[in-house]
């Protein structure tokens, strides 16, 4: 089968049981995405598939032929950081760093959902959309757990990156 990850096409011969996360980590050397719970509860494995964030541990690689897959490695690199990566560094949005790739990819996916006008559980008015606030960020990022509890700085980083990405958009 073929998988397109970070704009590179890969030819793979894999067991049908292999998750998208395991393909990246164990077969392609893309170890930026982390395995936390392996059950969709922690968000450390978050990737973008066709622009939308998903838990890559809870999906089979064989189901993603033809999809556009982006991992943390596809967002930026040390010489050319994505604004979200830069903001996490600036605000110290982590302690141990294990959840960080998932937090960053999830935050990028989350901002595009907000840009598309998607409401959330805490939106006072689901009919007419909403603007990004601390409460909105906390609710929308609840699928990413940080056991070091760096949450205040994660929220600050996302606010900063959101403002910067709007400027450059």
């Amino acid at each position, binding site marked *: 089968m073929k998988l397109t990850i970070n704009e590179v096409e890969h030819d793979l011969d894999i067991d*049908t049981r292999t998750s998208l996360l395991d393909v990246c980590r164990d077969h392609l050397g893309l170890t930026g995405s982390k395995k936390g719970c392996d059950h969709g509860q922690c*968000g450390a494995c978050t990737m973008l598939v066709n622009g939308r964030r998903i838990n890559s541990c*809870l999906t089979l690689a064989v189901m993603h032929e033809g999809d556009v897959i982006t991992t943390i490695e596809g967002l930026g690199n040390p010489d050319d950081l994505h604004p979200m990566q830069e903001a996490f560094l600036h605000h110290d949005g982590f302690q141990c760093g294990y959840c960080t790739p998932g937090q960053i990819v999830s935050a990028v996916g989350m901002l595009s959902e907000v840009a598309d006008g998607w*409401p959330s*559980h805490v939106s006072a008015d689901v009919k007419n959309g909403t603007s990004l606030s601390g409460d909105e960020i906390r609710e929308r990022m*609840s*699928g990413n757990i940080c056991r070091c509890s760096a949450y205040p700085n994660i929220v600050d980083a996302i606010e900063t990156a959101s403002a910067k990405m709007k400027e450059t958009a």
Partner: protein
Amino acid sequence: MRPFEYTRASDVAEAGRLTGRFIAGGTNLLDLMKLEVETPAKLVDITRLPLRDIEATDDGGLRIGALVSNSDLAADSRIRNDYEVLSRAVLAGASGQLRNKATTGGNLLQRTRCGYFYETSQPCNKRDPGSGCGAIGGFNRIHAILGVSEHCIATHPSDMAVAMRALDAKVETQKADGSTRILALDDFYRLPGDTPDVENALEAGELITGVRLPKPVSGSHRYRKVRDRASYAFALISVAAVVRMDGGTIADARLALGGMAPMPWRDTAVEKALIGQEPSMATFEKAADILLADAKGQGENDFKIPLARRTLKAVLADATKGA
């Protein structure tokens, strides 16, 4: 995870003939396969089927394709404007990542989050018929207070289905022989009785193709979910309500509850007790009395009976205020 054969269905008619377990979002099924609670020999990937649209129906309602993601459903402007309770319910469930993957059909078919169902070393009549129920007399804080049997006290975990029940949604299916049928949610779900492993009316190879919503129901739309943390947790009790006022009285009330029964729970006697009445705490208490007349705690979940009462009253007070 046990090995399985993987195949992709290219059209709806073919899907049922491929005789395997359907997989779409996979967020629940793969989780259970990793734990070997589910051990399908063959998976039929239905994600390429053309069931991703939300379309208007001839009777003024909507048809939601079975593969519409929970995110797309909650964000659809027609759902947000005309069926707000459904948008609210979907947004109250899971996380952003899971809602992006989970589908409408799959959400209806979610398995229970009972710990004994998940733990294969424990007895569970739903997972292993005849092995017993570990939750009765065991850890049962999250379990059901209505609709249970001596064989199973598990709850249905969906938020989406609770709102759909209040909205009189119907499930559209196609059987393996190509015939189709439309089932009200009440007829779609099965109470555990002595076969808790049978959770719905689907036959082997029968595929959910969509969900039909009747024409919009006017009134105040509410979805109140009480849970152990503010986000990304299953309901202890949830209430979906659409309440319409006419002058000072309740003209129409549709209510369904989650977290308290093996299926999204609706009791029309509760609604009848409210319609035509002036909203008051006494009226709401009476409605709660009817709802909970047969409710039975199992020990750890006894708190759900007063919690359901208070949540129902709070939702009714909110939905009828300012009328």
